[in-house]
Structure formats: C-alpha cells, structure tokens
C-alpha cells in the first residue's frame, strides 16, 4: 500500500491530467445517474403532485409507504432488480443484466420514491395555498398539477438534486446489477470500492475527489440557476 502522502499526490496528478480510464468511469457515472434522475423526476414528480392534490381512501397508508421507500437500502434494490433482470426473472428476456441500462433501472427505482415523497410535501404545502383559488377558477386537476409543478419549480430543482446526489453516491445497487465490469459498467463508486480493496489508493482517492467536486459543482450550479432565475424575475 502506498503511504497516504504519495497516494494524495498521485490522486491530484490524476485529477489534473486524467487518464482515459478515469474519464470513462466518470463519464459513465454521470450518464447513469443523470439518466436515472431524469427518469425518476418524470415518474416521481407527477406521482408526488397526484398525492399532494388527491384525496382518496387509504391515502395515509400510501403516504407512509412512499415515505418508507425513501429509506430503501441500495443493496435490496439491487437484489430485486437483479432478480427481475436475471435469466430466470420476469424481465430476463431483455438481456439487460450487467449493462449500464440495468444500473439506470436500479438507480431509478432507488430514487423515484425520494423524488415522489419530497415533491409531495412541497406541492402539498403549495396546494394548501392555491386549492381554493383553483376551484374558484374551475381548473381541472391536470391544470392544477401543471400550475403547482411550475410554481414550485425552484424547490423541485432541489428535490431533483437530492435524487441525483443519492444516485451518484450509491454503490450497492449498481454493483449487483452492473457487476463492476471494466470498460462496461464500472462507475466511480464501484471503482472506489474495488481500488480500495486492492490497496490502490491513488485512483480511489482521485475518484473520491471527483465525486466530491461533482456534488459541490451540481449544488453550486443549481444554486446559481435558482438565484439567477429569482433575480431575473425580480428585475423583469
């Protein structure tokens, strides 16, 4: 094992002049997690809006269930997706196991409840304020949902960010359904786990730094987008 000083020095070197392997791993991580985030938003935001505006028998139980799913262990999600996509599973004919698509599916399953539950809370608060006005204007449920999603867009951006953060940082699910295959399904978190177990701390540290930088960068980007949109609205 290299000593820590040497490992850090090598890691900085890798970050400053990344190798092809490193760029490939980072690129795949971003592609998988961003795609999963978009899919989770497409599924989770309308579900959150529906739960925020609809009143039906058993709604309380559904809310408890969706909130509980926020704490889904990634390895359990990985296992369930693995069972579904394996040859003997119901979706085995798709041949997706150990592909980046399987990883996207696993991450989507993992973060959709997060997006749905957090957006439900935000949209329900907004709906409490708007509901009577919407009824007075004779809006349909879909028109109300559209208005809620648009007016809550800045807060919902934070929800999407939370989903992305969870997706890009998880290791258990993508390890199980992706298999951590070099040049095929190796992403930052699985590579970090592998390199650490091999004692190759430089690459693990470099990937860790990039992961942290991405988390900070995405946060900064969302924050600046939000501030710029609010500033634009104030001076429009």
């Amino acid at each position, binding site marked *: 094992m290299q000593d820590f000083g040497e490992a850090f020095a090598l890691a900085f070197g890798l970050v400053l002049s990344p190798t092809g392997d490193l760029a490939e791993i980072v690129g795949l991580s971003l592609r998988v997690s961003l795609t999963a985030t978009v899919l989770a938003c497409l599924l989770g935001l309308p579900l959150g809006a529906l739960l925020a505006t609809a009143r039906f028998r058993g709604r309380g139980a559904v809310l408890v269930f969706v909130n509980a799913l926020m704490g889904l262990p990634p390895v359990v999600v990985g296992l369930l997706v693995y069972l579904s996509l394996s040859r003997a599973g119901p979706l085995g004919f798709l041949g997706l196991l150990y592909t980046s698509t399987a990883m996207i599916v696993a991450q989507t399953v993992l973060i959709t409840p997060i997006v749905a539950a957090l957006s439900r809370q935000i949209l329900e608060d907004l709906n409490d304020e708007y509901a*009577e006005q919407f009824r*007075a204007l004779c809006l349909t449920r879909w028109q109300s949902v559209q208005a809620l999603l648009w007016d809550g867009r800045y807060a919902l951006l934070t929800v999407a960010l939370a989903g992305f953060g969870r997706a890009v940082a998880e290791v258990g699910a993508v390890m199980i359904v992706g298999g951590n295959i070099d040049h095929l399904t190796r992403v930052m978190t699985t590579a970090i786990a592998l390199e650490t177990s091999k004692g190759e701390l430089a690459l693990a540290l470099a990937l860790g730094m990039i992961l942290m930088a991405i988390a900070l960068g995405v946060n900064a980007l969302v924050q600046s987008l939000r501030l710029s949109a609010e500033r634009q609205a104030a001076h429009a």
Partner: protein
Amino acid sequence: MRDLGYVETLEHAMLPLTVSGLRLSFGGKTVLDGLDLSLTATGVTVIMGPNGAGKSQFLKLLHGLIAPDAGQIDWNGTPATRATARQALVFQKPVLLRRSVAANLDFVLKARGKDRSRRDALLDHVGLSDKARQPARRLSGGEAQRLALARALALDPEVLLLDEPTASLDPGSVLAIEAIIRDARTRGVKVILVTHDPGQARRLADEVVFLHRGRVAEHSSAETFFDRPRSTVARDFLDGRIVV
C-alpha cells in the same frame, strides 16, 4: 367603452337567484341558519352585516365552492355547483401565482380556453399595463387585488362575487377598484359584493342584503336601506353601534 369580451346584455341568464333554507355549520357553530333570499335585479347587490354573520361563507356557497348542510341555491334553474364556471369569485386576500403579472392572466385565459390576445386589454383596464412583466407576488395590496379582478373578468363572468375586495387598502386603490366594479356593472355583469364599509355600500349598491346571525335581517333597495332601514340591527349598524 373598450371591448374586454364579456357580457354586455342586461337580459341576465343567471337571474333570478333563489336561496331557500340555507344552513351551514362549522365546528358546532351555526354560520347560516335557514337563510332565504331572492335576487332578481341586475346591478350591484351589497351584502353587509357584522363579523360572523356568514357573509364570506355565503359567497362561497353561491359560487359552489362549499356545500350547505341543508337548503337550496338555484341560479335560474342551475344549482350552485354547476354554476361556478359562469361566475368569478375574488377573495379578500387574492392568491396569485408565482409568476409575472402577465403570466397570471395568460395562465387563466389558456386554462379556460379564452382568447389570449385579450390580456393586454385586461391589464390596461385595471391599470397594470406597466407592471405586466413584474412578479405578481411583488405587487402592492391594491395592485394585487386589481390583478385578481382582471383575472376574474378574463373568465367572462355573468356574476362577479367579491369578498371585501378593498379591505385594508389605501383610498387610491379603493377608488380604482370601485371604478372597475362600476364598469363591470355597466357591462351587464351582476355584482354581489360583501363589504364592511357603509360608505362603499352607499357608493356602489343598487340594493343591500343585511345578514345577521345567519339570516337575512333586511333586503331592500340601497335608498331605502340607508335612508329608512326597517330592521333594528341594520339601523344600529348604520348608526355605528356594535352589532353582534
């Protein structure tokens, strides 16, 4: 008169309004207690009464937003729950969307399938043309209420229900809003206005309905109501005595 696209006929399809035996309770407290009322005249009907008389809840019932515990509301053969789309209700505290002034109108014009080119005329009508691109949430109280009125007029209402639209506003805003209400009346819109302000009622009312303890204590022309009120509670109210 600028064309805003709403009704300009005095032949009113939604009148007469017949309300019979209307009862409403909240948390064990009776708000409306067998209210009976018949409105036949066009123009402005002002609803007055002390706090807790049930005025605001009555407007929501007329608009079909809430259901009574008992009783009937009949808009010329149409129940209140099916008359909502032909009316517009402006709340005391307007709820505006988190977008620009113009976008607030665009949204409602689009949602209700109205001609979106009317937006500028509506903004001009309520004196908000210069604020079109400003965030609606940053309008003053009076401006916000004028936007709420523009939004209501965008719906081409046959009946305009107004719940204390000038409460806590400065005199300039009150004048501007009263001018919009008068204009709507002139265009043939039936206006039902809840107010606490006897001065405003004198300026706007064609007839007055005075509610007390969940019932109609007096229903008469504005002239009769202000000059020769028949009920003791209305007389006390107009004389500035405390009516509970």
